């Protein structure tokens, strides 16, 4: 039992990271109809920037405090992600309005390459660490409840709390601020949004920037746990089943879908994997999403599509 709980927790933890990446996908898709494959590259880019600035800043500014260095690094990285968002909108997106989905998807893959190249040129290809002071060693808890207790990483809980704060902040942003409401208007109906005078280009910059910030949060959590390296961008591929499970346009879908996929992956690998030689978690997640799609083609929370002729 305690092992099952550990697996479940592990799955939820991984799922939470997938949710954050999927959240980036969904935000951008809702606002601009672009399936942003570069989300993974953005996670990497943000994490690399954060890791490197946190490393460089003490030397540049003579700051001793780790907290301060991290804080400044985060601020700089947010700035960088804003610039990335602005450049993407300026140089690519605005010229690609009304193209079909596949073309847009490929364009974001092109952006992925550029980000990978720029990221590695500026920040290097080594493994870097993000040290935000998370506790690393596990503790055993609930020994009274379960035999042997449950192995728990405090780091995971702190990370989950950060993710929850991010989601809450995003919700507030969308519900309470004028910009957030404008974003929702665009998501619901492009034409309508345009007709009431919401500048689409600005909306896009904002939404890419918000996606960049979720990428940064995902990057910090992941990077603090496992280090930052080029391979981090492949996390996008792991998070894809999440968006088809949750629906491309649904924020709750991304969050719940992420958790389902995370847990599904770990449980399948741990309990089914040994019978077939292991390594099944990637395709299992995809198959899970696929089977699900066959019954509900629009995903968990996506809107039903009705053909009109």
């Amino acid at each position, binding site marked *: 039992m305690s092992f099952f709980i550990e697996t479940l927790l*592990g799955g939820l933890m991984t799922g939470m990271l997938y949710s954050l990446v999927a959240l980036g996908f969904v935000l951008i898709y809702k606002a601009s109809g672009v399936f942003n494959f570069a989300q993974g590259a953005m996670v990497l880019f943000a994490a690399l920037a954060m890791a490197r600035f946190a490393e460089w800043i003490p030397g540049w500014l003579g700051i001793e405090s780790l907290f301060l260095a991290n804080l400044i690094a985060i601020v700089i990285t947010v700035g960088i992600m804003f610039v990335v968002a602005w450049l993407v909108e300026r140089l690519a997106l605005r010229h690609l309005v009304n193209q079909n989905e596949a073309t847009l998807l490929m364009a974001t893959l092109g952006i992925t390459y550029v980000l990978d190249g720029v990221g590695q040129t500026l920040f290097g290809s*080594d493994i870097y660490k993000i040290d935000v002071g998370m506790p690393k*060693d596990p503790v055993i808890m609930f020994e009274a409840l379960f035999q042997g207790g449950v192995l728990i990483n405090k780091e995971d809980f702190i990370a989950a709390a950060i993710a929850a704060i991010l989601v809450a902040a995003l919700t507030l942003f969308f519900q309470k601020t004028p910009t957030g409401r404008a974003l929702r208007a665009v998501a619901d109906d492009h034409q309508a949004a345009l007709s009431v005078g919401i500048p689409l280009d600005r909306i896009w910059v904002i939404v890419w920037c918000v996606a960049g910030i979720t990428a940064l949060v995902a990057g910090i959590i992941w990077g603090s746990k496992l280090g930052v390296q080029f*391979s981090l961008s492949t996390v996008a591929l792991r998070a894809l089943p999440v968006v088809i499970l949750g629906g491309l346009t649904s924020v709750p879908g991304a969050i719940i879908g992420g958790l389902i996929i995370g847990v599904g992956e770990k449980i399948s690998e*741990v309990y089914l994997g040994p019978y077939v030689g292991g390594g099944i978690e990637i395709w299992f997640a995809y198959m899970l999403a696929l089977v699900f799609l066959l019954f509900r083609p629009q995903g968990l929370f996506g809107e039903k599509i009705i053909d009109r002729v």
Partner: protein
Amino acid sequence: MKQIRKLAIAASLAAALTGGLTVPQAFAQAKEQFFPILVYRTGAYAPNGVPWANGFIDYLKLTNAKGGINGIKLAFEECETGYATDRGVECYERLKGKHGGATAVQPLSTGITFALTEKAPGDKIPVITAGYGRSESQNGAVFGWNFPLIGTYWMGADVLVQHIAKKEGGFDKLKGKKIALVYHDSPYGKEPIALLQERAKMHGFDVQLLPVAHPGVEQKATWLQIRQNKPDYVFLWGWGVMNSTSIKEAQATGYPREKMYGVWWSGAEPDVKDVGEGAKGYNALAMQHGAEPNAKVIKDVLGMVHGKGQGTGPKEEVGQVLYMRGLISAMLQVEGVRKAQERYGKGKHITGEQMRWGLENLNLDQKTLDALGFAGVMRPVQTSCLDHMGSAWARVHTWDGKKWSFSSDWYQGDEKVLRPMVMLASGKYADEKKIKPRTPEDCKK
């Protein structure tokens, strides 16, 4: 405006199609020996690819600084493969004819090695895979052009088993023990399985196989399984970011790092340095050498190459584990050329075919190694036509939180176990490919 754009596209396309692909080929020069270098300095495996390449090149520079090989200077050129097989093949094709022809090629990727194994015999270019590649290619009778010098994965796995047997107090104590193999899910990671299963049969221990998908950043489930099964030892067959991820996950699931043993590609500074204290106690095979900041050859490199401002990578990394691996790989190739020159003429350019003879007749005794500055770094290497490995010695080193240091004596891979496996597998390969194995007589030619 639109017109100009279209014109620009057309022009750039035309240029792409006709222009650059025929980049001027350098002419053959008799007085240089060409070393193509397939590297990966970008992408998922860059952290490990970069120091290897730096060490390799620094040694070539050192050799040139010392006057070359009997007066023949070394020419070399890098080509980025990104660890991708097709790019690797392209690099090989691009470089093999330059500067009078490649001497030998070292792909530093199991995938590229497999592909080049098919091409090398036709081109008559030896493929040196020091410490990687297919284990059965040790049999030079079948794999005429492959040289897994000073280490194959079977030999490495064998040494690891010997080491834990010694720790436990004898092979008989291994009975009932559980060993988990956490491996990169690719031909590279799968290489040791055959040997471990063979040894498991002999001694009655259990092997649990835990594959990790490329690039290895997601290992939660793997380590949950380790936590569940509580194996006595974990062997790690990873590469790139997978290594440090494994160690971090081991820490997060509370698996003792002291019980973890990596292969020699999972035991270098990039794998542990950002884990720091968390990796303390983690062990890995040393492919003879470890981190060797005090070796004479390193002092030479620092003096004659870095000292002159010609160093390839950061000075602090000179002498680290993977740097040394690259450096030794280069040394073996250089010595192959030297040996070939002994037969085909000192100060002469050596062809790929002559190079094969040189590599098959390497005889680096301790005196030679000492003279080259490798005292204490490695043991003698002696190859033959039938044995393309040349040395089956290895030891174990351990990360103490700051540096790697040796923690075991020398072990030798057990011929009695290895030889039959090599013969069986290479025999099967020969059948499939309809290769007629070379006899000792053939070798004399």
